[in-house]
C-alpha cells in the first residue's frame, strides 16, 4: 500500500534507565543492577498535517517518547526516522510556569528560536515577527515588554506556543500542553492549536492523559501501558470499537459528563512498577480476559490482527475466527 510518506517513523523504539542502587550499596548488600524499561518496543508513524496522540496513565512512558523524538534522550534500541527538517521540530511542555525564563521579557523569549536559527535576521524584522506571533496566539504586541509572571497560566502557554512557532516549525511535540490549565483556558489553547494546524499544515505528536482532550485533538490515538503501545487506532474507531481490554476499562472508568453513571465500577488494581513489570502481557494481573498464555508470552501487534492495531491474545483469537 502506498500513501503519503510519514513525517515521523518510530520503529521498535526502546529506552532503558539505570535505576540501580549506588555501586557501593550494590557491593555491600549484594544487590544486582536494575534497569527500568520506560519505553519498551514502540512503533508508530505520523503522516504530515496529522495529529497522533499518546495517551496513558502516569509513568507509562509518554514523556520519555517525547524526549526521544526531540533528541533530549538517546534511544537504547530501535530507530526514529524524521523525514522533515530537524531544525523545524519544536516542543511545548506541560508546565507553562517552569518552561519560560522568568528573567527574560516575553519579546526576547519569543524571539529566541528565531535568533538561534536565523542569526542574521535584522532586529526590525525580528521585532515585526514577534508582534505578528503574539497576535497569532491572541496576545498583544505590547505584551512583548512584560515578564512571564505578569501572565496567567493560559497566557503563558500561549507564549510557549508563540515561541515554538517562531522557529517556523512543521512538527510540534506537545507534552501535556493543557494539563496544568483550567478547562475554560484549555479550550482557548486547544482551539488555537487546531486553528494553527489548519492554517500552517502543522503535524503534532500530542501527549495527554485526558481521553476527552485526545479525542478532540487526534486523528490517530495510541494507548500506552507500561512502556508499550497496546492499541493504536483512528480516534473515532478507538471510541466506537476499542479493541484492547485496557482501553475498554479506561473508557469505562472515566467519568462522563454527558452520561453520568453513578454506579460506575472502577478498574481494579494499580499500575505495576515498571522496574519489575508482570511477565508476558504486562496487563494480565488486571485483565478480566487473561488466560494461561497471557502470563507466559508477550502479545505483539501483528499485521493480520485488525491491521496491526492491537496487542492482545484475546483480540487475536477474536480476529482469527
Amino acid at each position, binding site marked *: 500500500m502506498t500513501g503519503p510518506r510519514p513525517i515521523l517513523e518510530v520503529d521498535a523504539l526502546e529506552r532503558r534507565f539505570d535505576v540501580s542502587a549506588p555501586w557501593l550499596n550494590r557491593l555491600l548488600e549484594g544487590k544486582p543492577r536494575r534497569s527500568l524499561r520506560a519505553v519498551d518496543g514502540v512503533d508508530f508513524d505520523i503522516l504530515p498535517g496529522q495529529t497522533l496522540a499518546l495517551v496513558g496513565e502516569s509513568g507509562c512512558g509518554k514523556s520519555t517518547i517525547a524526549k526521544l523524538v526531540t533528541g533530549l534522550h538517546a534511544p537504547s534500541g530501535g530507530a526514529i526516522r524524521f523525514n522533515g527538517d530537524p531544525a523545524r521540530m519544536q516542543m511545548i511542555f506541560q508546565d507553562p510556569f517552569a518552561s519560560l525564563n522568568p528573567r527574560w521579557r516575553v519579546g526576547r523569549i519569543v524571539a529566541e528560536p528565531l535568533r538561534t536559527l536565523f542569526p542574521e535576521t535584522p532586529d526590525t524584522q525580528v521585532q515585526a515577527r514577534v508582534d505578528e506571533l503574539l497576535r497569532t496566539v491572541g496576545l498583544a504586541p505590547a505584551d512583548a515588554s512584560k515578564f512571564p509572571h505578569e501572565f496567567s497560566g493560559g497566557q503563558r502557554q500561549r507564549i510557549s506556543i508563540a515561541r515554538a512557532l517562531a522557529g517556523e516549525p512543521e512538527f510540534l511535540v506537545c507534552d501535556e500542553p493543557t494539563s496544568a490549565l483550567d*478547562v475554560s483556558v*484549555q*479550550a482557548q489553547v486547544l482551539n488555537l492549536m487546531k486553528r494553527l494546524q489548519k492554517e500552517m499544515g502543522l503535524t503534532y505528536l500530542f501527549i495527554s492523559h485526558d481521553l476527552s482532550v485526545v479525542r478532540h485533538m487526534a486523528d490517530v490515538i495510541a494507548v500506552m501501558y507500561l512502556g508499550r503501545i497496546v492499541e493504536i487506532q483512528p480516534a473515532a474507531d478507538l471510541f466506537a470499537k476499542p479493541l484492547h481490554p485496557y482501553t475498554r476499562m479506561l473508557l469505562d472508568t*472515566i*467519568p462522563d*459528563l454527558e452520561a453520568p453513571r453513578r454506579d*460506575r465500577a472502577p478498574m481494579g488494581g494499580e499500575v505495576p512498577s515498571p522496574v519489575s513489570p508482570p511477565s508476558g502481557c504486562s496487563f494480565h494481573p488486571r485483565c478480566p480476559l487473561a488466560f494461561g498464555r497471557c502470563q507466559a508470552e508477550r502479545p505483539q501487534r501483528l499485521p493480520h490482527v485488525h491491521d496491526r492495531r492491537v496487542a492482545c491474545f484475546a483480540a487475536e483469537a477474536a480476529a482469527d475466527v
Partner: protein
Amino acid sequence: MSDPVLEVRNLRVEFPTRHGILTAVDDISLSIGRGEILGVVGESGAGKSMTGMAILGLLEPPGRIAGGEIRLSGDRIDSLDERQMQAIRGRRIGAIFQDPLTSLNPLFRVGDQLVETIRLHSDLSRGAARARAIALMKEVGIPAVEERIDNYPHQFSGGMRQRIVIALALSAEPELIIADEPTTALDVSIQAQITALLKRLCRDRGTAVMLVTHDMGVIAETADRVAVMYAGRLAELGPVDEVVRRPQHPYTSGLMGSIPSLRREVDELQMIPGAMPRLGAIPTGCAFNPRCAHAGPKCRREVPRVAGNDPSGNGAACWLALEGETA
C-alpha cells in the same frame, strides 16, 4: 427537619494586603445534609479551597473570616479559638487534601498514626484501637493489611496513601469531611477507585461531604448537589443533574461547553472570552459581566445573588436567570 450537618451563611474571607483588602470568598451561603455530597467546582483561584479552609479553621494569617456564620450540626464554629477548633478537626470534621503526604507524617508507621488518631478521639485501649485500625484499612481496600500496617507512608503508592488518608479522616467517625481535590494527583483509573470508595463509605456512615474539585465529570458522577464558584462568589447552586443539563448561569454553561466531549466530535470548543479577574480587580456588579454575552446595565451596577441567599436554596446568581432581563 433536623439541622443540616454544615450550614454556611454569608461567609466572607479576607486577606489584608499592602494594597488593600482582598476578598477571596465573598458572601457564600450553602448547606450539606447527612450523607449528602456537595460538589464545589470552579477554576483555579475561584475560592474553593479558601471556603474549605475557613470551615476547617485552617486559614493562614493574615487570611481571616471577615463575616458570616459557619454551623456544624447547629453549633457555631466560626468564632472558636484555635484550641477549640483543633478539638473539632479530626473528631467532628475530617480533611482529605490533594497530596496525601500533607495528612501523613513521613516519620511514623501508618498503623501507629491511625491508632494515635483513633485513641485521641475515643477511649479505646491500644489493642482495641489497633484492631479498629486494621478493620479500617481493610475497609478502604489496603491489601494484606496485617503485613502493611507497620509500613511507612513512602512505602505505599499514591493511590494507597490516599486510601490511608481516607481511613484516617474516617477514623473518628466525623460528621463532615472536607475533601479538597482528593484525586487530582492520581491516575485516571485510581481516581475512580478513590471517589467510589469515598462515596460508599460516607453514604454508609451518613457523613456529609464537601468535595472540592475542578473536574466536572467527577462531580456529575459523585455529588448530589453542586456549587459553582467564580471570583470568590457563588455563581450557581443546585442538584447536579439540573446544573449539568440545564445550567442557568452563563458562566456555568460556558464552562460546560468548554469541556471536550467523549461522545461527540466538535470542530471547535466553546470559549469564554477573557479570563477570571484577579481579586484586586473584580468588576462592579456581576463579577462575570465583562465576559458575558448577556450583560446589561443592571449587571454592571448590582451584584446578583443566588435567590434569597438561603443556604439550601438553588439557583443562579444572574440577573437574566433571576429577572428574565438585564436592563
